[in-house]
């Protein structure tokens, strides 16, 4: 299986701003890949490089094993892209726009188009200027999902969708995966990412800080442990990977790097455990840890 997207050491500057500073990204064919990072971290710049809209200063990027700048047209035959802020032409109907985008890609499946319009509850006869934000987003989503392509690049595609439509969107992405299509999904909606993504890459300030499956990423973060012990705890503070230790008599609360959990549990059980709760890191904690500057994490 070839990789759908490979990016290594990508650099891109706009004047004095270094939007990308050596970014790496690998998306396997057939997976749904989450692309995460705080605002301004370089997600959209990366996507624009992958679409051949921007020329990278240095580094390598390949889509389907080809150069997105020189082979843009051939690559685009197999790509559908949905931006986070869809703008439409004021005097063209949504249906016209869907068909235009279909023609600009590899073609459109008319049955799938009709089915998607139904599912997204979109009125394709309305003119561009009369659509609300969410409905403009739906126009682009229907065009993307109905297109006969191998890779979907979705840049915060669900902004403005209501929760019901969000669910329809998630089902559509799941269907795409079943058909063997690849999805690169940039999103801030963590439940969406958790539900859909096989693997995620987290970037910050133009550099990839973490990449892997959610389970792998969880492993890299801290678990909160709170326990009530039979005797006084001892030696906990000296264990590697223990943070925010709070001992109140026989009650202990602490955070521990997940891969150091074993040693902590052994130490606790030496004192005798009466009750124990251990909470794996939530996705929010996971992201906050990566999104924030090192200084504030420490």
């Amino acid at each position, binding site marked *: 299986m070839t990789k759908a997207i490979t990016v290594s050491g990508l650099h891109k500057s*706009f*004047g004095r701003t270094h939007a990308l500073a050596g970014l790496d990204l690998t998306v396997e064919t057939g997976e749904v890949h989450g692309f995460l990072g705080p605002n301004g971290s370089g997600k959209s710049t990366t996507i*624009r490089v992958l*679409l*051949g*809209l*921007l*020329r*990278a200063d*240095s*580094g*390598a990027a*390949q889509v389907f094993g080809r*150069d997105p*700048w*020189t*082979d*843009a*047209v*051939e690559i*685009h*035959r197999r*790509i*559908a*892209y*949905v*931006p986070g*802020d*869809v*703008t*439409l*032409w004021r*005097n*063209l109907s949504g249906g016209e726009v869907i068909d*235009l*985008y279909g*023609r*600009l*890609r*590899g073609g459109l499946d008319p049955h799938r188009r009709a089915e998607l319009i139904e599912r997204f509850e979109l009125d394709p006869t309305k003119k561009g*200027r009369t659509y609300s934000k969410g409905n403009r987003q739906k126009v*682009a989503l229907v065009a993307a999902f109905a297109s006969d392509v191998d890779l979907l*690049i979705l840049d915060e595609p669900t902004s403005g969708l209501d929760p019901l439509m969000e669910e329809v969107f998630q089902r559509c992405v799941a269907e795409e995966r079943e058909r063997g299509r690849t999805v690169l999904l940039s999103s801030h909606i963590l439940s969406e990412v958790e539900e859909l993504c096989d693997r995620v890459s987290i970037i910050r300030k133009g550099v990839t800080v973490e990449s892997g499956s959610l389970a792998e990423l969880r492993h890299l973060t801290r678990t909160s442990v709170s326990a009530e012990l039979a005797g006084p705890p001892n030696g906990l503070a000296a264990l590697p990977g223990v943070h925010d230790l709070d001992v109140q008599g026989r009650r202990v609360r602490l955070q521990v790097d997940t891969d150091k959990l074993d040693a902590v549990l052994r130490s606790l059980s030496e004192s005798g455990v009466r009750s124990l709760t251990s909470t794996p890191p939530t996705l929010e904690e996971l992201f906050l840890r990566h999104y924030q500057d090192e200084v504030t994490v420490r």
Partner: protein
Amino acid sequence: MSAASFAVRPTSARRLAGTGILLRFALRRDRVMIPLWVGVNALMVLSMPNTLKGLYGTPAERADLIGQMAGNSSLRAMVGPVFGDSLGALTAWRVGVYAGALAAVVGLLVVVRHTRDEEESGRQEMVASGMVGRRASLTAALLAAAVANGALALLVTAGLAGQGAAGALAFGLGIAGVGMVFATTAAIVAQLTESARLARGLTAAVLGAAFVLRAAGDSATDGGTSQAFGTGGGSSLLTWASPLGWLTNLRAFAGERWWVLGLLAGAALVQGAVAYALADRRDLGMSFLPSRPGPAAGRLGGARALAWRLQRGSVLGWSIGFLLAGLVYGGMADGAADLLGDNEGAREIFERMGGEAGLTDAFLAAMAGMLGLVAALYVVTSVLRLHGEETSGRAEPVLAGSVGRLRWAAGHLVVAFGGSALLMLLAGAGLALGHGERTGAILGACLVQVPAVWVIGGVAVLLYGLAPGAAMGAWGVAGAVLLIGWVGPALDVPRAVLDLSPFGHLPKLPGGEMTWAPVLVLTALAVALVAAGLAGLRRRDLST
């Protein structure tokens, strides 16, 4: 893969992929705009032979007209020199410059609309994610402009063929050529600026400069009219510096100089090549003229300050244009009288009209009137900013603040109405400086135009307030007034039609008698129109 592989250039076929789809799409979007503009332009040209036949039916009448033209530098400045006495030649003379300018406007609007507008709105990003080559959008835009100009050339050629097939072909191609020259100018400017509005403004400024250069050149010499009829002379360098001057010098229906078409084609090709070269060297959405970062903290105090902040760039641009045009035309005023030395017949006519002083006055009055008509375009753009702010949704959050609709509208209207008075003041200052004397009389001549400009602005406010869907109709009103003002008098259009334009009622200054009645009536009319429009705005729903 290494960094070097980014430098590989795609083949030309791939860079144009998708052009066909985008062209059809562009024409579909412009299905109303292009036929309308082309139709109006063709109508203006094709109606001319009949009109001229009625006015100058006999050879004697035509000879008389040509004599007048040879001597009247202000008329030459307005419409260019005459090169022949056939109906075809007179048609080319009478409407050539305006048909060319109109074709140029269409060319620049079409090209900017399908290039920088699309990038600025963000739509281009999604379009370019399809099977669209890097040069496809620019090519489709230029082809759409070519379709519009080609249709115009066809209509003009077919419609005027009765006056002489060769002349009709030359004239049709000449007008279309000017259209394409400015379409490619717009293609270059669209690579330079980040905003479509600025791209349109800068290209329009180039067109304005071309108009002024040709006018200055043609007023300074008689463009070889007398050569064609026996006595020496030729177009000045200033005329040859302007593509509109090339159209004049094509001499359609009067011994066509076909090589001038090569000049137009060459300019379009060179400019097109520059535009492509620039486009190849930039990223999508980027521009060569970088937008400077703004202040981190704002000091805008309210709706009025916001309106001024939004419009000040455009006011500055228009102000510079009016001042420069005033300076150029003011400098030409004296020359207008001197040129009469060569032509006995014309000298007699103008001596009867009031001698040299009378001629200079007539020229200054004509220029003040022409600048007044152009100021009407400013006032319409400025008033319609309200419409743009409302339909784009930008007005909504402003009006959701503690800002009444009237106060919000007033902010923009002060800029529109105050700005048009400022423009005429600057035009007067320019004319007076250029002419070097009679400052008071010239300033008065320019300021007397202001009430008529305000009436046009008032119509725009009325349409916007009462029938926002028809707000763009204000352009139609301004266009009609422009047509009446520029082309009307020379054609002996019925008085009733001339009277439709507020400019037709103004006293002819300097030289004429100052009459206060029309000035006061027009001012009152403008106030009433604005009041009615604002009353409508207060009552109606805002579009969201």
